[in-house]
């Protein structure tokens, strides 16, 4: 009980409590609007273009019509996967940042994406035909190994990991994993371009099968994330205070990392490492709705879904009618933000 009131007070400073409610409502409405608009727009793009009205008509229309077939078998899975991947990556970022108490912790920085990607390439190149749930499990394993490696290196011997240590350890482990990935690609030169497309990350060739593969993991990860919301709120008060309030800190941290790798690993297994969603979205959402994880997690999920859906719309205009991976767009969006973040972080740690 004491813990609860304390968290509330800490996460919502009294003067801004009301404003946060209003902003949250606005952000949710805006996120939903963008998601729906992006989805309808995305559904209309393709070899046969459709206006928004035609899209809605095709969605609801008779199952025999050609536009109904196109939309339901090719385009709906793509949009759905974009939303799911965006949501899982964003929530993975929230949990990782809360767990590591480190604003730069994100699936891309901590090597989670690279670990899962290495396993994904191995699965495609060496064990051709490894797919579905087996690939997801393997990717989660790779993601977990990488994450524990980076957090271990960055935190070893020190009480708390500074952002610089975490970032450097993450980049080094990522470099190692990337080298191994490239080794695999060089030694098995068949289909390099296709694998490379996947390595950049994108939902361009999504099918219903992908949705079926990722859905249970995404659902489990999201449920786990919501269960971790309260413990993470308490952890945000500082390790000592959290321990004093009766929180099992180490257990919470391990569960947090597991939740992250479950979310990010399954997303990478299906769509490749779509870059920087897990870094950008939580930061922006936190600025808008505050630090209460009970609000932060669902709103980040929504905004992540909207972001990747819109990025998927944008990537189709890069070299239409050829496909550009969605990850290229998110990477180009994300890197300026990353630089800004690095600068402001360094100012704070100085």
């Amino acid at each position, binding site marked *: 009980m004491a813990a609860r009131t304390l968290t509330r007070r800490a996460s919502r400073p009294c003067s801004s409590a009301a404003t946060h409610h209003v902003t949250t409502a606005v952000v949710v409405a805006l996120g939903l609007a963008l998601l729906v608009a992006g989805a309808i727009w995305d559904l209309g793009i393709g070899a046969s273009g459709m206006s928004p009205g035609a899209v809605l008509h095709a969605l609801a229309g008779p199952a025999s019509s050609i536009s109904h077939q196109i939309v339901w078998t090719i385009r709906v899975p793509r949009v759905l996967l974009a939303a799911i991947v965006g949501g899982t990556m964003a929530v993975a970022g929230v949990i990782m940042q809360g767990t590591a108490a480190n604003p730069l912790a994100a699936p891309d920085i901590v090597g989670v994406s690279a670990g899962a990607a290495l396993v994904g390439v191995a699965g495609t190149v060496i064990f051709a035909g490894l797919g579905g749930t087996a690939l997801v499990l393997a990717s989660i394993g790779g993601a977990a190994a990488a994450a524990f490696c980076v957090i271990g*290196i960055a935190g070893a011997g020190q009480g708390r990991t500074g952002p610089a240590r975490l970032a*450097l*350890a*993450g980049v080094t482990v990522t470099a*190692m994993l990337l080298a191994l990935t490239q080794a695999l690609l*060089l030694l098995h030169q068949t289909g*390099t371009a296709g694998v490379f497309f996947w390595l950049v990350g994108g939902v361009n060739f999504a099918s219903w099968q992908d949705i079926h593969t990722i859905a249970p993991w995404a659902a489990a990860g999201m449920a786990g994330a919501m269960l971790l919301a309260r413990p993470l709120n308490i952890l945000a008060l500082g390790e000592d205070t959290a321990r004093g309030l009766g929180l099992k800190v180490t257990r919470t941290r391990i569960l947090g990392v597991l939740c992250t790798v479950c979310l990010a690993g399954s997303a990478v297994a299906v769509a490749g490492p779509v870059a920087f969603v897990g870094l950008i979205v939580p930061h922006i959402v936190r600025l808008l709705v505050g630090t209460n994880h009970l609000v932060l997690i669902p709103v980040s999920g929504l905004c992540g879904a909207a972001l990747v859906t819109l990025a998927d719309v944008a990537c189709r205009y890069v070299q239409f009618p050829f496909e550009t991976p969605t990850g290229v767009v998110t*990477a180009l969006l994300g890197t300026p933000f*990353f630089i800004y973040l690095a600068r402001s972080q*360094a100012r704070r740690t100085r």
Partner: protein
Amino acid sequence: MAAATLTAARPRARARTSLPVLLAGLVAADLAISVVSLSVSGAHLPLWAAVQAAFGTHNAYSTVVTQSVLPRVLLCWLVGAALGVSGGVIQGVIRNPLASPDVIGISKGAAVGAALIILVFPAASANLIPAGAFAGGILAFFVLYFLAHKKGVTPVRLALTGVAVAAVGDALIRFLLIRWPANINQALVWMVGSLYGRGPSAVVGILPWVAVLLPAVLYFARRLDVLGLGDDLASGLGERVELTRFVTLLLAVVLASAAASVAGAITFVGLMAPHIARRLAGGKHLRYLPLAALIGATLMLVADTLGRGIDPPLDIPAGLITAFIGGPYFLYLLVKAVR
């Protein structure tokens, strides 16, 4: 005065063997590997004949040895030394043993430059690839310095911004690879780092940089020790912190870019060599930087020789082997730190 923080972080790392002995031992080891390396080629060459050919005796193997094998052995020395010293300086300036030219985006910048030439202008002369890589590395440094500059640069901001610059480079490379995929395999080999096909002209290309810049870095060694004490103390001791930091970083970056221009984006040599050197000789830059150069050369020699010898005629890129050595070494550091 010159007890750098890097030593303070690891009090056990004391010099156990005297420096001349270490230097002589490493030179001897490098020479021995070089001799063995001379006889390893697509076809196995007799050791003695290969050595004779390398020293100018004309025999059946002269062409292969002087045009292909000997240049690669020399390049291993030069590239390894450049990367080792560059990594040592960057770790010293940023005061973080995890920093290296690959981590702060220099190698990525070089890779973008090379990938641009290889992928977008495939008809351009092959001589342009090293130039593109060199320019890319230097440009990445200036971007990094500009972005990290705000009333001077601090080590933490340099490190974080460097990571971000590396990420930008990564995004650009991905875009180039997807947009112009025709030469993707050549670009991939280059990005891993390999000495395959490098001849005498590559040696001539990198030799002046190493010959001029290594002594220059050693000239700054004492000032690097002072920088290691922290900005406040260093400026209290009369050091012009910002200027020294910029000049030494620039020297390190030019070395790394020169190495990348002939060998591609070799990873982990710039991270590992200074680490091992500090364990052997302690944290004073004047002591450990020469060792880092020799250890870098050792790593490159081992990697390139293995790459040629494991599965001929397949030439496994040296950068893959340094990553395979560097990964476990890094994990070993982790395990040791956890204990």
